[in-house]
């Protein structure tokens, strides 16, 4: 119980913030100075994982430690879906949050990690309400949209956010005797479905991720009801990472102030070039990973 309060509590303290992917201590310092509320320590950003192919695994603990030493903000790191030993290693390293992530090559095609046993909280990706609540049932203290990482195309993150939020709107409007059948349909635990209906939102903090590349993208996700955003390849694959990082931070705070968004969107140089998510072959889609 205490671990739940603490993992959920840290996620609540990240709200309204931007979590940035970094591959070096130097990038982590740039992210912190730009106002990131946390960093995700990685060997390769998703755009490079996508370009280089092969099996993507947990990063070298040495690199993660160097990044932890470089900044005072929370440091997250990714493990493969189902790879509970990578997760234990990350816990031993002392990261502040573990992302059981579809961006890495899944280690288990059936099971996710039983996350309740860990002292360090987890964030997991989802495409719809059922998937989100299955991850919460396993112990995830925070949920993010999967989007389509490494593309710079926000459309899949929008799709996943709308899937979840739309499903919650339907759930809150349906008759009480329809709830159990709905829980069965979306393959989610009934107790969490009821809790979601009572709250009118996911029972944990819900961030956007996967393809966010501009301040406007970040603000769009906030309007769709997200609590904050992850930006992966979008910052350090752009022409001016420092300026873009700062602009995205300000865009998340001021997402409803369009004059402010116009101001922060000005003169940022080239965004990451990106790939349209709809042009990806099915095998190249990361969001399909996770069960």
């Amino acid at each position, binding site marked *: 119980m*205490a671990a739940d*309060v*603490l*993992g959920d*509590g*840290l996620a*609540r*303290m*990240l*709200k*309204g*913030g931007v979590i940035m992917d970094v591959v070096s201590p130097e990038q982590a310092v740039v992210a*912190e*100075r*730009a*106002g*990131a*509320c*946390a960093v995700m320590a990685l060997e390769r950003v998703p755009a490079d994982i996508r370009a280089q192919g092969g099996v993507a695994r947990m990063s070298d603990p040495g690199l993660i430690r160097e990044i*932890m030493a470089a900044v*005072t*903000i*929370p440091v997250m790191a990714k493990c493969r879906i189902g790879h509970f030993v990578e997760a234990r290693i990350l*816990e031993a390293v*002392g*990261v*502040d*949050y573990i992302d059981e992530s579809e961006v890495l090559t899944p280690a288990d095609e059936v099971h996710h990690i039983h996350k309740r046993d860990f*002292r*360090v*909280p987890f964030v997991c990706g989802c495409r719809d309400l059922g998937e989100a609540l299955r991850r919460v049932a396993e112990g995830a203290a925070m949920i993010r949209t999967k989007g389509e990482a490494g593309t710079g195309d926000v459309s899949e993150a929008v799709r996943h956010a709308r899937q979840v939020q739309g499903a919650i709107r339907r759930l809150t409007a349906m008759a009480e005797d329809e709830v159990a059948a709905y829980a069965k349909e979306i393959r989610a635990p009934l107790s969490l479905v009821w809790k979601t209906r009572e709250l009118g939102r996911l029972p944990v903090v819900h961030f956007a991720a996967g393809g966010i590349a501009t301040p406007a993208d970040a603000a769009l996700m906030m309007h769709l009801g997200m609590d904050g955003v992850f930006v992966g390849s979008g910052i350090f694959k752009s022409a001016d990472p420092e300026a873009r990082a*700062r602009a995205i*931070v*300000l865009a*998340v*705070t*001021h997402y409803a*102030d369009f004059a402010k968004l116009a101001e922060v969107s000005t003169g940022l140089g080239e965004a990451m070039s990106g790939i349209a998510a709809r042009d990806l072959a099915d095998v190249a889609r990361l969001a399909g990973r996770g069960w």
Partner: protein
Amino acid sequence: MVVGVLALQGGFAEHESVLARLGVASRQVRTPQDLSGLAGLILPGGESTTIGIVAEANGLLAPLRDFAMAHPVWGVCAGVVFLARAVGRLQPTLGVLDLEVARNAYGRQRESFTAQVEVAGLGAFPGVFIRAPRLVAWGSAVEPMAWHEDEVVGVRQGHILATAFHPELTADIRLHAQFVAWCH
């Protein structure tokens, strides 16, 4: 009466929920104009570097300092860091509270903890400490008001309150009620 909650980043919605439970109107503060007419202000938990950087970018540092001179202000966790005079590193802060803090001094997230704390005038209180700052040293105008075992985890300087723990993450609304009473 309207109580403001600094809404640049972090756990501001949780404070608004508690204020609503107390029947007190709240307003999210993002710009200097948002401060006008407020009876008091809560500086919520979050990341103090983010909050400081965004406050600086919005031209909020000086207006917040002026506000804190004349009105009740309560900093929680990152809000304590944001109020403090010395934080051990360069980051934008208000510096209106004569307090030195050590950020993340309890350790990383796996060292975050819950424990009972003792609050002056209220007695036992649930303490939730998340990557909390340690209160290291303070000036003569600063009065300790909360303890975890022998360690000071909350202080008061006039109408400025600072707690390293998060009452808004518990069901205990007594500290919020006390702060609201100051605002009247």
